């Protein structure tokens, strides 16, 4: 669930209020307000769309987790996506490997299972 909007980084552009698919946030005087935490599905979209890397979403989707240190994680999702990079930067060049790797994983599981059954 969304845990923190860091006031020292946030410029109150309210992009997170706009992009949240479940309308968790309200506009606020200094920074947006987390108004409906029970509707947060931990989808990280607010973090991804935050140009200032000012938002930290804690990983548990079922319960709030106060007290975590957000600093090591700020902006990681945004950078990993190459969110602000131009289209021709090639940051999705590895994406084609997803399907074959899924298939390879399925084969690994199937071979291992068969080998074990023969062993029993």
């Amino acid at each position: 669930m969304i845990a923190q909007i860091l006031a020292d980084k946030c410029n109150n552009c309210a992009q997170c209020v706009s992009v949240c698919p479940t309308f968790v946030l309200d506009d606020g005087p200094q920074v947006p307000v987390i108004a409906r935490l029970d509707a947060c599905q931990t989808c990280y979209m607010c973090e991804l769309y935050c140009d200032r890397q000012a938002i930290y979403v804690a990983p548990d989707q079922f319960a709030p987790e106060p007290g975590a240190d957000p600093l090591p994680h700020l902006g990681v999702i945004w950078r990993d996506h190459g969110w602000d990079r131009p289209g021709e930067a090639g940051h999705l060049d590895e994406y084609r490997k997803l399907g074959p790797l899924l298939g390879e994983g399925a084969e690994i599981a199937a071979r291992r299972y068969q080998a074990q059954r023969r062993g029993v």
Partner: protein
Amino acid sequence: MSIHLETDVLIIGGGMAAGWAAIAAAQAGARVVVADKGYMGTSGVTAMGGPNHWWVAPDPARREEAIARQSGKAQGLGDPEWMARILDLTWRYLPSLAPHYPFGSDGAGGTYYSGVRGSEYMRALRLAALNAGVTVLDHHPAIELLRDDEGRIAGARGHALRARLDWEIRSHATILATGGNAFRSGLIGSHTNTGDGQLMAAEAGVALSGMEFGPSWSISPAWASTRTLPYTGAVYYDADGRELDIPPSRAAGHAHNRALGHAMLAGPVLADLSHAPKALRPILRQIQPFTPAPFERRGIDLFRDRFPVKLFGEGTIRGTGGLDLTDAECRTSAPGLFAIGDAATRELVAGANSGGGAVNSAWALSSGRIAGTAAARESLARKGASAPVHGLGRIAIAPHHAERTIDVTAIHRAVDHEIHGYAHVFTRDEASYAASGERLEAIWSELSAHGRARGPALVSLRETAALVAGARWTIAAARGRKESRGLHQRADYPEATGPTQRQRVSGLDTICIHSQQAEFA
């Protein structure tokens, strides 16, 4: 004060199918309004995933072979003509997003189109729609459809969450693109997928088909639903470190989920991904950056440490069921009303099986293109003064008896349990369906008699009603199909029995089932 708008085509919903429909309708010359419950670009299950599209080059032999294979999976309920259409439209239109989506390399000097990352894909669809002149209204959930005196659907009413105003949009054609129903299982992205469009259409007399084919499942860390990417090589253990006997997913299907579900009832199930393909590790972050986050933020190495997992139910999303279509342009039986994407039945292309991933994505794109084009044509032919309208919504709007507070949280828990409860869902029989049906019936009666709300609370109570309605149709349809076929598996009828029947389910207070010989068997 309230918001009043008039347009040619109104699209309700802002996911993948809505995006393609909006672009197609605008290109055909119509004024288009998209009214989304969330934000067009992040709403629904696409933005958090990585949809692959059914992708076969336009070579007659290869297409024919792909359609034959898919028809086999559909187990007598798929329509080869529809399959050919969605292959064609997907091949032609997916590359048209290139100005807005950073398609990567195919590793052989060309471009890789078929698989796309959800967040960039949805961002691209929004940009393309805005560029085509579409008006996008975010955080504008629809509540009910409007019908005019001629019996045509003439728009919708809803509530603007951010402005805190009711809205009414009059349209000459209306497209439901509200997605499937995940029954609030916690599946990532699905919080807004409560089957709203199906409830609204049912109030206009539209039936559903394929509702019995489901649910499907995705496995995730127990604390956060993510996509299934690294789990295909997983080994599972109980809390005492004993390896569990879980048949692999690809070959076993239902038995895989059943074994996992039953193990989860007995106690925590831990996944070990140390056997996952080695090549995955260095590029996982680049392929799917949302996958590592829930682990890193808990200090877990997902390829080394064992961690608890949970099966998240996917409701109708990767199943088949949805609004029944009456023609090749995605019209429903209500004049002026179209249905596309996961809001519509996917039986035509997925049959009895999950169209999960590739086929459902191709369906969303194609049904969007088809309905958008047809709705534009139909609306442009109907310009002129609009007739008086009335709202079709009843449940949560006009209760039969005095208003009473409804415990929506308890209802959501109950609905998810009936549809996704591990204890009964993997060994369904007549008695189990009857018991689920009875419990859901009691919830519906309470809602129908006493549910009433306004403004944002009405949006939420209508979602609750849609969840319950969807669960009742699902149970009624599954109970009606006395065989096992594809995703529909019963312990009391473990085999498929011929001839292949297609089944429609309809009604709200009273649910009816109609069976009919499948035309494509």
